[in-house]
């Protein structure tokens, strides 16, 4: 049961500031994801927490224990962490059993060591593989051995650096699900670096969105997906439509998708209106048969995925086509006219 707390952390490589006054608290026992584009500093943050990079400022606490302040930076081997790098990093010269028991030499009896290795192999479902060498295992099995090795010392915190990126697509979801379930079952505080937004949304309890060395938003998956603080941030958790709009006093909206029926009336009144942007998720727009109730759009392109489809819609008043996700067994034709309706929550970003 350990909270991970990072306060005002700064990391510099020469003159370059990679992390700037970064603060982050991962609640005890939760599975957190660090999500951001390449080069935003998420791997650097993870490695700094592991003790592999020396920070230039700030503090890191595991529970109540300080592991890193300016005067004292604990080396990695004194932090009691589990670390899963991008590549599994299994020791090629050791067997599966020796890999798992790698950290169990000091102060651990031979019998106890054996028992822990057994337990770990049980945990990851690899009984009977003890004497294999890493290269004799499949990719998924290697990842599970790496996890067992990381968990063998019952670490307070587990750090995962894009742990499943080496696995092929089909295997990835399964292994990821297993690993996350296991970490949650053992109530280990975990932090995973990823650039795969679906991976983060599906598996994490909390997500920290990173940009240019900062955590820009932190919250539950639903929270960061539904209430992004900017268009750019919204982009990092899913596709987003930026719709130019006007907002009148009292909250009434006018945009290519809103207030069509009363547009004439609204513009007639010289009411004060605020210009801004509406952030809309593609699945928050419904497509209807054309009628007077809804703004009209012309289907310009159809991207068919089987279980659903994305339509590129041309709509008057918008320069860019609107990308809309539609499900179900409805058939569309390029060139035909449809009516569109926005039904999701209003996310207003002022200009």
């Amino acid at each position: 049961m350990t909270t991970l707390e990072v306060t005002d952390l700064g990391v510099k490589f020469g003159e370059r500031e990679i992390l700037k006054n970064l603060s982050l608290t991962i609640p005890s026992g939760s599975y957190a994801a660090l999500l951001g584009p390449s080069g935003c500093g998420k791997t650097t943050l993870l490695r700094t927490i592991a003790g592999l990079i020396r920070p230039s400022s700030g503090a890191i606490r595991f529970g109540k224990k300080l592991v890193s302040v300016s005067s004292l930076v604990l080396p990695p081997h004194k932090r009691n962490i589990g670390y899963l790098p991008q590549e599994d990093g299994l020791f090629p010269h050791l067997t599966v059993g020796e890999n798992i028991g790698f950290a169990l030499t000091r102060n651990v009896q031979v019998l106890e060591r054996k028992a822990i290795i057994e337990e770990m192999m049980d945990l990851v479902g690899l009984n009977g593989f003890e004497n294999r060498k890493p290269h004799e295992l499949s990719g998924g099995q290697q990842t599970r051995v790496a996890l067992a090795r990381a968990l063998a010392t019952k670490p307070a915190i587990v750090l995962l650096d894009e742990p499943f990126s080496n696995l092929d697509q089909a295997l990835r979801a399964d292994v990821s699900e297993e690993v996350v379930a296991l970490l949650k079952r053992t109530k280990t505080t975990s932090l995973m670096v990823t650039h795969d937004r679906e991976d983060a949304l599906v598996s994490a309890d909390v997500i920290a969105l990173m940009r240019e060395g900062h955590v820009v938003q932190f919250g539950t998956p639903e929270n960061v997906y539904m209430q992004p603080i900017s268009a750019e941030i919204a982009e990092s958790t899913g596709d987003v439509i930026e719709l130019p709009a006007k907002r009148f006093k009292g909250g009434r909206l006018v945009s290519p998708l809103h207030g069509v029926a009363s547009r004439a009336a609204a513009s007639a009144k010289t009411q004060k209106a605020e210009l801004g942007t509406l952030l809309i998720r593609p699945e928050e727009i419904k497509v209807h048969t054309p009628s007077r109730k809804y703004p009209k759009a012309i289907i310009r392109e159809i991207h068919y995925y089987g279980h659903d489809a994305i339509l590129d819609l041309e709509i008057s008043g918008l320069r860019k086509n609107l990308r809309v996700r539609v499900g179900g067994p409805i058939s569309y034709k390029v060139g035909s006219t449809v009516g569109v309706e926005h039904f999701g929550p209003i996310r207003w970003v002022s200009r």
Partner: protein
Amino acid sequence: MTSLDPARVLKRESPNDSKTSPLLIIAGFMALFIVALPLFYLTKRALQIDAETLRIVFWRFKSAEILITTISLSVGTAMIATLLGIGIAWSLNSVALPGLGLIRALVILPIAIPSYVFAYAWLSLGFLPKGFLAALLVLTLTTTPYVTLAALATFQRVDSSQIDVAQTLGLNQIETFRRVTFPQIRNAVAAGSLLVALYVLSDFGAVSLLGVDTFTRAIQNTYQGSFDRSSASILALPLVAISSLVIYAESSTRQRSRVFTSSVRIVKRAPFNRSNRAKFLALTFIFVYLSVALIMPLSLLINRFISRPKPIDVAALIQASISTISVSLLGAFFALLLALPVAVLAARRSRLGLWSERGVLLVHALPGIVMGLALVSFGSDFPTVYQTLGLLAFAYAILFLARSVGSTRTSIAKVPKNLTEIAATLGQNRSKIFLRVTLPIAAPGVLAGTLLVFLSAMKELPATLMLRPTGFETLATEIWNNTAIFRFSEAAPYALLLIVIAAIPTFLISRPDRDFEKGGY
């Protein structure tokens, strides 16, 4: 994340790299000190000479002539060996030859024949001429494998898709080689050629037997004629200077050759040429090389061995083998002890490591005879170690340390960084990480480097002659003693045995399938 992530690119930022254990630093300084010792004694001895003697030495020994002979022999050998080596490597890499694995091992094997053994075989025939051309031929044939090895290794790294593209762009096979393949192998092959040049500069046995006046022979004559160590040391200095230049050129071209191939990608092997004409030409070429470089000397030795008038002195033979193996093993062990700290420091790119590595390289430029001379001077200051097995083994260790350091450094640097990081997160401190992760994974390379020292030490002649304890005979000295007085038949069993012993590590090292990355554990 991509490899461009700053956390991975700027590896030196990690705190793991910033602190080096004091023990390692002490070991590094020790190695640096030990390596500097022969250079110090050589200079010290040379400085003791007076102006008059200096004039006599350079006048009497016609040093300008010696210089020209030495350099032309070295350059000539390197050039011919380069052409031969590229030709052999190209044939092996591009033509579908039957028995490829065997041929590959055989073309490397001439390395195991010391040049003085080859020269002895040449002379034992009785009617072949001595002189510059004979030395050129003998040295070329024994050194070609250095180029072959370098060229083979780089040929395999040239992506066949580039060759495909070149051919679709309208280049024929020869143009493709000239414009696509050659620029990529050029630096590695040049490094091999420079190794050949260095070998010739330091060669003593072949030039002495074949009567070519190079620096090494002049040094030996001065030393033996008058036991005048100062004059000999003065003669050694220009040789050391030339060798250092070659070493410097070699190491910088080798480094440039690395830049070419540092990108990580999957290399597809070029398809073999299966036409009968290509097979015939390649086989003929390789057969001619092998028959002159391998079959001829071996059959001459065997012939001498069979037709010897007296029975073999088995006791002396066994004694010499044991002496050779034990003192060479001791030398290899010393080299391992010295190489480990230097290699570790160099792999971490610490300043001390880079300096020690340079020192090791500089000493590598010392020909065996010069090393012998320097350590004789050292021994005259410390008579207790003079003419002991320890000093001889020590001489081997410093002479061939560069081979051990090179191989050890490369294999240590190749241990994936993430493995040592994981070991750190798994509660291991630096020394534990080294013992439990780095060393076991690097072991094949470390072992190969040690084997190289062992192999070179067994063949080393001049340093052995100068530093051995009185009455201590190795295979090399027995060959030399008998050949010098034209007892060719008596030398034959020693020469054959030395080749057989030296062939084993040569064969092990040159096997291309020794590669743990393919899961060879």
